[in-house]
């Protein structure tokens, strides 16, 4: 069967692990459990009546102590950049990481997801931030691992 490796990258606690759990198992938890290293999941998917396996690499977040090892991205068919809409600085992390990733694995398709859209009162991103994404012609979506909003669509859009 065709296998496609997809990596989740972004700052810590933006919701990478939660998005994968929502997408693969359909579950969500509010408890924060730090990922150290890489967590791998797979999800079967059918695109244009062809079965394929998505191999999802949930990579630990970027912070002062753990830097993302770019070698982990080797062989990725695509990647998802995850920002936390309630922490503007995580969008800067996304911009920085994307440049590094592209340097490492070349230009493969990617998608940006602005997660935690359910937290409307804490939402920090505004028009200017979205403009920055549009100006770069980056495909992005808002979503929530908690409610499931946009999650399925994000993966689907990426794979197509």
């Amino acid at each position: 069967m065709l296998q496609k490796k997809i990596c989740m990258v972004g700052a810590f606690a933006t919701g990478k692990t939660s998005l994968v759990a929502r997408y693969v198992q359909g579950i969500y938890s509010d408890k924060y459990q730090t990922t150290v290293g890489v967590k791998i999941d797979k999800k079967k998917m059918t695109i244009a009546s062809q079965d394929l396996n998505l191999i999802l690499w949930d990579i630990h977040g970027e912070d002062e102590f753990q830097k993302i090892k770019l070698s982990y991205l080797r062989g990725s068919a695509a990647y998802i950049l995850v920002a936390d809409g309630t922490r503007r600085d995580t969008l800067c992390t996304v911009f920085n990481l994307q440049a590094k990733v592209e340097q490492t694995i070349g230009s493969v398709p990617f998608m940006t997801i602005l997660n935690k859209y359910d937290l409307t009162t804490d939402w920090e991103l505004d028009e200017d931030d979205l403009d920055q994404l549009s100006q770069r012609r980056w495909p992005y979506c808002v979503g929530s691992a908690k409610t499931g909003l946009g999650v399925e669509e994000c993966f689907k859009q990426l794979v197509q």
Partner: protein
Amino acid sequence: MLDVPQPLIHFLATMVIQDRFPAYLQTTKEGRLLTAGGAWDRYHFNPLTGHQPVTDQLWFLAGLLPAPEAAIHIPFLQLEENIIAEVHIFAEPEQDWVILLDATAENAKQVLIQQKVNDLSLLRRKQSHGLDQAIQPDPVAAHNLDLPPEGERKFLTILLLKYFDLPKLAGERSVAHPIKQLDTDLSTLSPLIMDEGGLLYQSIGSAIVAIFGALPTTRHPPLQAVVASMRILELLQDHHRFSTADALCPWGLVLTSGTLIIGLQPVGFGRTLTVLGQPLDLALNLYDRIEAGTLIIDNLTFDQLDQMQNILYR
């Protein structure tokens, strides 16, 4: 290669095989399985069939083979809920090797540390984010407190900060946006408190209470509280140099120390921090005596600092 005697090599190899559950396989450059052996059971990948594409069986290898020239090392690869492997992949001219070692226990240790680091970093962010979010019924804070439900006696230092509306005191018109000013000041001072392991506890009117010694720390609470206080006074003085008539910092501080009862009370779905004890009462009693730009230190805090100095400089 290090010159290690044969018996020692044997001993080390036995130890690794016993404790780390090595599993290995060898593939062709086209990714077909040649040989496999070792503890594949441990990783729930058994049985493996020869001559078939290896990524069909070990799906996590998708994208990683054929092995690049430089060996790949993934220290922690979580395959299932409770199985974490250390993975090595390296190339030989005709075939590639994959080796797995069990790293579940080592990962658990690292997660503990990293979790604390990340939680504190999120908490710090939250506390430096302004008055409304700073004060605490906060799961992140609760998580870091490790308190038994019935509460605990702990040696803590209380820092009470009092805000003065100085222009008003001086008979001038009040600051245009006192709440906003307070908020800006709080964003300035809360990172200084967090840096020293303090926690913003409560805010009532123009008083803010922080506690030192509740979060995990390596240093003595009175010392941390004094360092934080000095830095706060210094920084806020700087901030207000141009905005107040007599260039005075509109904050006054009190430090008290002693054994307090500290606990987390269930409130609604969350838990709220409660602190009780004489040092807190003392700090509140001193409220009226606080002067702008000054720091009052109670006897016990002072004695503790003195003792520490003796230890340090004896």
